[in-house]
C-alpha cells in the first residue's frame, strides 16, 4: 500500500516543460487546433453509501434539489445537446458514469448511433475514489471499462475520475487495467490534469505510452455556471475568446481546445443560445480539427510523444 500513507508534494506525473520552443505538433490536414466536446453523461444516486472523506449531498436524503437538477440532464438535456452537436458536425467524447449503461441504455444507444466516443468516468458520480484500497480502485476501474466494452464494443481509451476524486495511483491503475483488458488499444489518456494547452506525456509506473489530453476546467460549464456563477452570454464569449487565442497560437504548433459539458447546466433553455453561438463560431473556422479525445491522444502518441519526451528530457538536463 505504498503511496497511500504519506502525502507527496508533487504527484510526479510530468516534468516542467515551458510553453515555448517545443517540438511542433502537427494535426491532420494542417489544422491549427484540435477541438473536442466532452459531454459528461452521469448518474448520481439518490441515496449512495457514505464515503468517510466526502459527502454526496448537503441535505439529509432525499436531497432533491441536487439530485433532481442532475436528473434533468438525463431526461431533457442530452438529447438537446445531441441535436446541437449534429448540426455542427461534432462527435461527442462522453465522460460516462458507466452505471448509466444499465439505468438508461436508451441514451447510450443514441450516442453509439452517432459514433461518439465513450470513456470512463467511474461507475456513479456519487462513488468517490477517496479511501479505496488499491485493489478496490482497480476493481472499480475495471468494472467501468468492461461495462463500456460490453454495451458499446468500444475499448475505453480515456479516464476522468468520478467526481474528480483521485488517489495517487489513479492514473497508474487506469493505464494498467487498460493494458490488461485491451493492450495498447485501451487506457492511454487521462483528462484529470489541467497543466497544459497541448497534450503531454505522462509518467506511469508501468511505463506505458500514456498522455494527458487538455480537457479544461475553465471551459467546463459546471465550473463556469455553478462554481464561478458566470452569466450565460459571458460564458459564450469566454468560449470564443479561448478559441481565438488557441487558434492563433496553433499556427506555430497545434493546440487543443475542449468544452466539457453537463447537460443539466449548458442545455437549460436560457443557456442554449450562448452555447450554440460559440459552437457555430468555432466550427466556422477553416483550420479546425473537430475530433474526439481518443483521436487526439492516438495522434499525439503515435506521431509526437517521442519527440516531446526527448525535448522534455533535454530541457531538464
Amino acid at each position, binding site marked *: 500500500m505504498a503511496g497511500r500513507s504519506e502525502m507527496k508534494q508533487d504527484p510526479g506525473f510530468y516534468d516542467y516543460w515551458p510553453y515555448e520552443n517545443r517540438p511542433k505538433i502537427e494535426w491532420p490536414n494542417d489544422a491549427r487546433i484540435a477541438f473536442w466536446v466532452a459531454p459528461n453523461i452521469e448518474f448520481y444516486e439518490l441515496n449512495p453509501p457514505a464515503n468517510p472523506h466526502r459527502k454526496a449531498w448537503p441535505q439529509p436524503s432525499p436531497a432533491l434539489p441536487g439530485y*433532481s437538477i442532475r436528473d*434533468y440532464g438525463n*431526461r431533457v438535456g442530452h438529447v438537446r445537446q445531441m441535436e446541437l452537436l449534429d448540426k455542427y458536425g461534432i462527435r461527442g467524447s462522453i465522460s460516462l458514469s458507466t452505471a448509466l449503461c444499465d439505468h438508461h441504455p436508451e441514451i447510450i444507444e443514441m450516442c453509439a448511433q452517432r459514433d461518439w466516443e465513450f470513456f470512463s468516468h467511474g461507475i456513479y458520480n456519487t462513488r468517490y475514489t477517496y479511501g479505496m484500497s488499491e485493489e478496490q480502485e482497480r476493481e472499480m476501474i475495471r468494472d467501468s471499462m468492461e461495462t463500456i466494452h460490453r454495451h458499446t464494443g468500444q475499448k475505453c481509451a480515456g479516464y476522468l475520475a468520478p467526481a474528480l476524486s483521485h488517489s495517487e495511483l489513479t492514473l497508474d491503475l487506469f493505464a494498467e487495467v487498460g493494458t490488461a483488458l485491451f493492450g495498447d488499444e485501451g487506457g492511454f489518456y487521462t483528462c484529470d490534469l489541467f497543466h497544459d494547452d497541448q497534450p503531454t506525456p505522462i509518467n506511469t509506473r508501468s511505463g506505458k505510452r500514456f498522455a494527458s489530453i487538455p480537457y479544461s476546467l475553465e471551459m467546463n460549464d459546471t465550473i463556469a455556471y455553478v462554481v464561478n456563477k458566470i452569466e450565460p452570454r459571458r460564458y459564450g464569449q469566454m468560449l470564443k475568446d479561448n478559441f481565438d487565442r488557441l487558434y492563433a497560437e496553433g499556427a506555430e504548433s497545434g493546440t487543443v481546445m475542449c468544452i466539457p459539458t453537463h447537460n443539466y447546466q449548458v442545455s437549460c433553455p436560457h443557456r442554449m443560445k450562448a452555447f450554440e453561438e460559440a459552437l457555430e463560431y468555432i466550427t466556422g473556422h477553416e483550420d479546425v480539427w473537430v475530433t474526439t479525445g481518443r483521436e487526439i491522444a492516438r495522434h499525439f502518441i503515435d506521431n509526437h510523444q517521442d519527440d516531446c519526451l526527448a525535448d522534455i528530457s533535454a530541457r531538464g538536463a
Partner: protein
Amino acid sequence: MALDQEYLQYPHRSHGMDHDRYEWSMLSERKPVTWPGEAKLALWVNVCLQFFPLDQQGKPFAVPGGMTMPYPDLRHFSLRDYGNRVGIYRFLRAFEQFGIKPTYAMNTQLAERAPYLLERIAATGDEILCHGWNMDKLHYGGMDKSEEEELVQRSLSRLRELSGQAVTGWISPARNESENTPELLAASGVRYFCDWVNDDMPYRFNTSAGDLVAMPLSNELEDRFVLMNNLHSEQSWLEQVCDACDFLMEESQTGGGRVLALNIHPWMLGQPHRIGKLEEALAYITGKSGMWSASAAEIMQCWQQQQD
C-alpha cells in the same frame, strides 16, 4: 486502508431510476402536448409570497433568503417584508398591464398575517397554491412523520379556509422534502407539486396515497437564484428569460407545447430598480404569438387530459 466492501456494490444498478418515485423517461420520446389555441408556450408566472420569521431556527438548514445575522436580524426581516407591502403591488400592476394570469404560492402564515393582501389576491380570481407554513418550517429527510403530517394538514386546511379556494398545488419552503412529503401531500388533497426540478414538462409522480403531478418550475431561471445566488445583473436575468423563451418556442416546433415557468419574488424583482426588467420580460414574452398565459393548475389539467 480500504472502504467497506458495500461501497463497491450497486444494488440499484438496473434499468430505470434508483428509486420508484417516477418512471424513467426522456422528454424527446414523449407524445407531444397541445395547448389551447395551438399555443406553443404555456407561460406560468409563479409569485412566491413568503414570511421569513425573525426567530429563525434554521432546522435542519437556514433557508436561502432567510436571516443571516445574529438575532434580531432586522435588515433581512424587513427587506423580505418589503415584498409583501410594496413589491407585490408593483407586480399586480405589471400583470394587469400585460394581461398575465399569475399563480401565487403563499406561505399560510402570511395569509393569516396579511388578510388585506390575501383578499386582494383572491379578488383577482387567480390561483393560490400552498407554499408551506412559513419559510422556517422546513420539510426534510428524517423529520418526524406525525409532526410533518400535522404541518402539511394545518398549512393546507388553513389556507383553504382563508382563501376560499380548493388549493391543490404545493411548493415546499426551500423546495426541500422529507421521504414522506409526497405521500402526505397526496393524502391531503394536493394534486400537483413543484419541488423537483428534473424536467421541462409535467410528469406523473408515484406515492402510496395516489399519484401527484410534478410541475416543472425552473430553479435555474428564478429571480432569486440568478440575482442573489449567482449575482448576475438585472439585465442578464432579462436576457436569460428572453433566450429561454426563444429556445422553448423553437423547440415546440418539433417537440410540442412547452412551459416557460418564471418563479419570482416581490422582495427581489419588486424593487424600484428591478421592476422595469420584469416588465420588459413580460412585454417581450407577451409580444410573441403563440403564448398561453395560464395558472399552474390549468397547465397541469391540460397536460393531464392528454395522458393515456
